[in-house]
């Protein structure tokens, strides 16, 4: 037994490791599209907006994945509806919907008859991943990655130039819808481990870091997945040895990876100029 293998001798940590692999693969790959399409606010909103669904699932004892899925559909519909109201702008509409839904979730979760545990939903409970969570998460992740691969060229054409994509046979509306559904799926996969508030870390940070390092989409996706997985595993070590909250240290290190990439890009720029 040594420093590296020691943490993963327990079943809890082995399952957490698998969970990191799953959410790293989905978050890294899909995150590239979220970053390129500037959907970070959307990802954040879906994660917050699904909160009542998670709370109700926790209260009623149904699987979190199911409650989260229902919550996310409601949130997406509400955002889409509010976005159609003329005169207030999309961002403001999103803020209204998310604030309301999030407040509703907190109201449900913190009313006096509810057992404590809201923090698990807010910040995730990566060490509490069960075998059933893992199987469901892996299946959803596989479906998302297959869909991403199938839609790759259409998403690329729309992202590159929306106005001429249609003449190439790639419908911008379809691409938007697909991206939204995939993003919702990715939030669902990752919310088990990182919770409502931190899920956006895996969806944005690794991809934003990879964007600084790569000049092509496929290498960027590969780099984002690698960064997510490495930062995630490092987060597990940090949480094991420093005894800090696992979800927060995973999320924190993913953002740290972005900062590192940013510094690296800056340094490369400076050396290139001199």
């Amino acid at each position, binding site marked *: 037994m040594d420093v590296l293998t020691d943490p993963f001798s327990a079943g809890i940590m082995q399952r957490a490791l698998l969970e990191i692999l799953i959410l790293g693969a989905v978050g890294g790959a899909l995150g590239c599209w979220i970053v390129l399409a500037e959907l970070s606010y959307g990802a954040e909103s879906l994660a917050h907006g699904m909160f009542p669904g998670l709370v109700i699932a926790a209260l009623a004892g149904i699987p979190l994945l199911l409650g989260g899925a229902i919550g996310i559909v409601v949130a997406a519909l509400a955002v889409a509806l509010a976005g159609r109201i003329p005169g207030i702008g999309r961002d*403001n509409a999103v803020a209204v919907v998310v604030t309301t839904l999030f*407040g509703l979730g907190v109201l449900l979760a913190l009313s006096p008859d509810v057992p404590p545990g809201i923090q698990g939903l807010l910040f995730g409970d990566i060490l509490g991943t069960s075998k059933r969570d893992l199987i469901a998460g892996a299946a959803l992740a596989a479906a998302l990655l297959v869909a991403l691969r199938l839609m790759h060229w259409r998403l690329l054409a729309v992202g590159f130039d929306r106005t001429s994509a249609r003449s190439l046979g790639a419908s911008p509306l379809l691409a938007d819808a697909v991206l939204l559904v995939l993003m919702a799926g990715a939030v669902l996969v990752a919310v088990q481990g990182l919770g409502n508030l931190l899920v956006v*870390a895996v969806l*944005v940070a690794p991809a934003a870091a990879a964007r600084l390092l790569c000049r092509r989409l496929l290498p960027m996706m590969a780099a984002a997945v690698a960064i997510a997985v490495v930062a995630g595993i490092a987060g597990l070590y940090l949480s094991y040895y420093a005894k800090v909250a696992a979800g927060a240290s995973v999320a924190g290190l993913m953002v740290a990876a972005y900062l590192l990439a940013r510094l690296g890009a800056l340094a490369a720029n400076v050396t290139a100029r001199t």
Partner: protein
Amino acid sequence: MFEAFDYPFMQRALVELLLLSLAAGTLGTWIVVRGLAFYSHGVAAAAFPGLVLADGLGFSATLGAFGVALLFALTVGQLAARTSSGHDALTALVLVAALAIGVVLASDVFESGANVETLLFGSLLAIGPDDVRLAALVAVLALLATAVLGQRWLAVGFDPAAARALGIRSPLADLVLLVLIALAAVATLSAVGTLLATALLVVPAATTRLLTKRLLPWQAATVVLAAVEGTAGLWLSFETNAPPGATIAVISGGLFALVALGRAAAGALAHARARKVAVA
């Protein structure tokens, strides 16, 4: 029914909320005009680790929160106001980093435990005399700045390109707005918490936006609406024991939905009536 407001801490909370409505109402209209909703959410959430740090080390919470929020305003906010794209990933990253740091500090360094929920969603009992003073200060500043800089903010929000061409866009005016929003977000923290500051800063202004497009009536209506929603939220929070941030968010969001539905129904009715007239 209103015996809730017989308690001194509830009276203080009420005064705080009314002052906050004045600040958030005027600033909220600027937030909506300038599309700074995500920024407002980010700046409030960024204050979270500052609050935890202040709580743990025992210095003024306002100072800790405002320090971090100011940092956020000067970095991310500047980007958000200047460019139209690319800042949203940055905002999201800073936001999530602030939350992660706050959680680690709260649960593992200072072991603040249950306090975290107070910081995140606000609490009736957390409102102190200092908070009331801060809210009064922010309200005065917000009104003053609106009187002095309102025209500039409006011109830039209406058409950034034209405003730049006219030489109106000044970075200083934008910076003042960003710092004021940060200050207002910090002032709302004790009442509504770091995660639901938008319940006061954005939702009332978006609701009244549906009813009027003219600036002065809009701002006045927003202040009144924020005060009403805040008061109702306080009362509900007292009755249910839920954090005031959550009750205010649900009440103001519900009202927004009602107004939006009402407007849609009125529009459909007017349309139907016009058609009937056309047929007859």
